[in-house]
Structure formats: structure tokens, C-alpha cells
């Protein structure tokens, strides 16, 4: 794996940019896809958002400030693109973003690209009841196992606030699962 600093240098140099961009996609496609997928839930939407994310990264690579980490910058773009996407969808359907999320989660049972069992479905439905910020923190901490410092860089939120968000998210999810299973 090529290191971040070299990759950024190649990306910002017009001569090596196209080739380096191919390398960048290969290195980050899976991580960014799953990050986006957990927010938009449906594969086709995740595919759309992922492609838009990479296009945005390519267009703005010269504005990337080398002081911050490349991966946090890309995660930030992916997160913003995902949230913009679901906001737009909710607006088209004339519903609140949290209602939209819950509606979406209830369609997962019939989604061909959802292979989870009963309990995994319950967890997704539980996450869908949370406010967006708590969803993001829960996904990044629980599933992606990122450190608070990394999440803080991506979401531009203080570590203290993140810890509080995660605590609330976990408590609500635990309660939701208990009511559905016990």
C-alpha cells in the first residue's frame, strides 16, 4: 500500500494525477462504500453516492490541505454526500429525514442485497430510529471501529460530544433490541 503523503503528491501533480487516482479508488473503494452503505442502506443508492464522492474528491484534490489526513477528508466528503442524498430523497417524498430512514429500514427485508438474519435486521431498524448524528457515530465506532480522534476529524465534532452521542445511541439500541427480542 502506497503511503498517503506520496499519493497526495501524485494526485496534485497533473502528470501523475490520473494514474494515482486509480490507485486511490482501489485503496479506498471498499471502506468508503461500506461507510456510505450504512447511511443510505440501499446498494444502488450507495453506488451513486460512492461515485459522486470519488468525482468530488478528484475535482477538489488540489484544495486538499495536507495538514489533515487524506482518509478523514475523504470520509468527510462521503458522509456529506450521503447525508445530502438522503435529505434530497426525504424532501422528494415530503417526509422528515428520520421518518425516511425508518421507512427505508423497513424495506430491508425484501432487499436482495440484504443477507442479514432476523437480529441483524432488528439492529438496522434500531439504528434507523436514531438521530442522524448518533447513527453516524454508532456506525463508525461500533462497526468500523474507528477511534474517537478519527471520528472527531471526520465529523468535525469534539471528542466529548462524540462520546455522549455514542452513549445515547448504544443505550437506545440496547433498549430497542430488548423490547423486540426478550
Amino acid at each position, binding site marked *: 500500500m502506497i503511503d498517503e503523503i506520496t499519493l497526495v503528491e501524485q494526485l496534485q501533480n497533473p502528470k501523475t494525477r490520473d494514474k494515482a487516482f486509480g490507485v486511490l479508488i482501489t485503496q479506498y473503494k471498499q471502506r468508503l462504500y461500506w461507510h456510505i452503505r450504512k447511511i443510505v442502506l440501499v446498494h444502488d443508492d450507495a453506488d451513486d453516492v460512492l461515485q459522486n464522492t470519488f468525482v468530488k474528491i478528484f475535482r477538489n484534490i488540489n484544495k486538499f490541505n495536507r495538514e489533515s489526513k487524506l482518509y478523514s477528508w475523504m470520509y468527510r466528503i462521503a458522509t456529506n454526500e450521503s447525508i445530502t442524498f438522503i435529505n434530497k430523497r426525504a424532501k422528494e417524498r415530503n417526509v422528515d429525514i428520520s421518518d425516511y430512514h425508518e421507512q427505508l429500514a423497513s424495506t430491508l427485508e425484501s432487499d436482495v442485497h440484504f443477507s442479514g438474519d432476523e437480529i441483524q435486521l*432488528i439492529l438496522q431498524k434500531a439504528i434507523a430510529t436514531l438521530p442522524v448524528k448518533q447513527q453516524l457515530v454508532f456506525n463508525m465506532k461500533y462497526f468500523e471501529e474507528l477511534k474517537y480522534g478519527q471520528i472527531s476529524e471526520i465529523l468535525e465534532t469534539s471528542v466529548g460530544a462524540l462520546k455522549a452521542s455514542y452513549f445515547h445511541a448504544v443505550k437506545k439500541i440496547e433498549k430497542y433490541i430488548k423490547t423486540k427480542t426478550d
Partner: protein
Amino acid sequence: MENELKNSVEYINNKVGKKTGFSAPTNYFDTLEDSILTKLAEENFGNKSAFKVPENYFDDLENNILQRISSEEKETKVISFKERIFKLIPIAAAASIILFIGLNAFVFNTIDELTLDSLSNNDIEYWLDTNTIHSTDISTVYEDDILEENEFLFTEIKDESIEDYINSIDNTSLLNELN
């Protein structure tokens, strides 16, 4: 708070695990680079198309179409049922004649045509054994097809063609032959 959080996370982990349940289509990631690079290239084309329509074209479109529809409606003639039946009589007569001829040709025609495939190998062998073929027989069959010597005369070939040919062949093979 720390302990409470730890317990709750453990509860979720024991109950559900770390799998989300989401899956992606097979080979999705294999072709992703190409899809993204294609999308980037597409964006450079721009959204504006070079085609233009005359001024007010779309404003007048509804009226033009509606006008055409109403004028076509006026032209449509009403045909009575009786008229329709009378019109059908000659067609039905012609159809039954064609049907009769057709049936004769396909169904009642049972005489098989002779082909080489319908002969058995034994029959062919027997014929070859009992008949002698003369070279004159063969020559009468092929007479028309045999090439004339004149067709190979060099006077008929243009100089340019010969030059082209010499230029196009490999020199080394010529030299080898001369040696």
C-alpha cells in the same frame, strides 16, 4: 458511565455481532474503477447539446398535434357492416383457391424428388462397377469451365502491378532462391 456503556456494547455484540447484514452484488468492486473513470470522463462532455429547435417550436407543438388529430378524424369514413361483408367475398374466394392449390402442392404431392442423398452407397458402388466412364464424358462436362492458357499471358499484366508485386515481396527470400 464507562461501565454502563461497556455492558451495553457487550450486550449488543453478544446478541448481534459485528456484521451489518448488507451485501454488495458479486464483482461490484472489480469494475468500480472503470465506472468512476467513465463518470469523470462523461462530466467533461458537458450537459449542453448542440441541437437547436426553431423559436416557439414547443409552444406551438400541442396545437399542431391536436390540429392534425382532428383533421384525420374528419377524413375517417364510416363503413357499414354489409359493405364490409361484400368486400370480403372476393378475398375469401381468392383465399380458398390459393389454399386448394397450396394443399395440392404440399400435402397431396407425395412423389419424392431424387437426390444423391436418397441413393444408398451400395447402389452407387454397383453403378460404378457396372459402367465404365470415358475421359470424353468428363471432358464434355468440364469443357466450359476449364481455363484457357491465354489467361496466364504476361502481356496482359500491367507493369505497375509487377512493380508493386516486386516491392511488396521479401527481398531475402529472393536472394535465398538466387543463391
